[in-house]
């Protein structure tokens, strides 16, 4: 590298480093292809599962006999614990309403991977741009969600899954839109 390119990088970091550090990037697991993303699983006001592809079809049927799909607990320190037993599209509007009624307007994106969690318990979401509320997400009873064969119609994934990464962002900052170029 030349002196010019060294200086240019230094200037970019000094002037735009904070912007870059807060940038929401597409799925961080894309390189290895091991992570499965669930776009916008939770959001304060516009919850949805739009864009989920076949490989992400972890949606469960959630029969009447199963445990409640979600629970939201707010601690005295203002942090929020979202407990997901099942990610079921029909329940998401209810979860959305619950979060909204609690005054939460953040979007939370979670990334799942196959296999059991190496550590049990909730995962603390990384705070992205515009995030103001600390959020933790607990999947299943102890961090692992198990999907049985034929558990629900349309379910294409079977086995154990765990949450490997979680990002909380302000409503305006959540999501990404693919290549838009610049200029």
């Amino acid at each position, binding site marked *: 590298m030349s*002196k010019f390119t060294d200086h240019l*990088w230094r200037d*970019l970091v000094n002037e735009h480093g904070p912007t870059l*550090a807060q940038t929401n990037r597409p799925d961080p697991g*894309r390189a290895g292809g091991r992570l499965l993303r669930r776009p916008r699983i939770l959001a304060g006001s516009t919850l949805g599962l739009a864009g989920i592809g076949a490989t992400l079809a972890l949606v469960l049927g959630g029969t009447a006999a199963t445990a409640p799909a979600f629970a939201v607990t707010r601690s005295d320190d203002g942090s929020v614990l979202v407990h997901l037993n099942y990610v079921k599209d029909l329940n998401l509007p209810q979860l959305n309403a619950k979060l909204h009624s609690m005054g939460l307007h953040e979007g939370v994106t979670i990334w799942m991977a196959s296999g059991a969690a190496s550590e049990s318990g909730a995962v603390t979401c990384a*705070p992205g741009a515009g995030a103001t509320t600390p959020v933790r997400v607990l999947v299943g009873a102890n961090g692992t969600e198990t999907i049985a064969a034929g558990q629900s119609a349309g379910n294409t994934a079977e086995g154990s899954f765990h949450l490997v990464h979680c990002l909380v962002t302000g409503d305006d900052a959540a999501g*990404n839109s693919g*290549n838009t170029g610049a*200029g």
Partner: protein
Amino acid sequence: MSIESKTLVRTTRSRPVAVSRSPRGGPPTSPLEEFEQVYVRNVDVLMGYFARRCREPQTVADLTSETFVRAVDGFAGFDPRRGSDRAWLFGIASRVFARHCERAAGGRDAVTRLGGHRLLDEDEIEELAERIDAERSGAALLRRCEQLPAVERAAIELVDLEGLTPKEAALALGVSRVAFRQRLSRARSRLRKGASEQ
């Protein structure tokens, strides 16, 4: 402190001139580190792109800087699953250069209007002047391409000078791969024909 902030502190404090060495080979752990890898992979190539078009070291520096500043602004929307970072950056660079030309043609000081860039010191001016000199053969090829339509000239440059694959170049120019291959084929054919007639 957020994950991003910790990474930034580590980067700026321990590596104030991070490009003095290659970034580590593993996957990036933060957007800043990811962008650093994009920068290291492409800054030299982009500098060459502008060095073939401009004779002033300061202009080459400003346009290269402008390209990366715009890349920072658009980094959230860049998805490497849709195309390489090089193709993405060349798309930005071509727009930066087009704007520069429009302003220069309008009699305005394009460098001044881009604004905000620091002046180079003597060492940097010398470095960039050498780079401009080293790109003379590429610049000569570009001049030979001047009789080609702009889209064909761009096709030749991105593939034969910059080393992009046709797929990457098509993405950078915003055209389909089929259309791009046709343009590239036509451009090469015209160049061969032109050379044989001289």
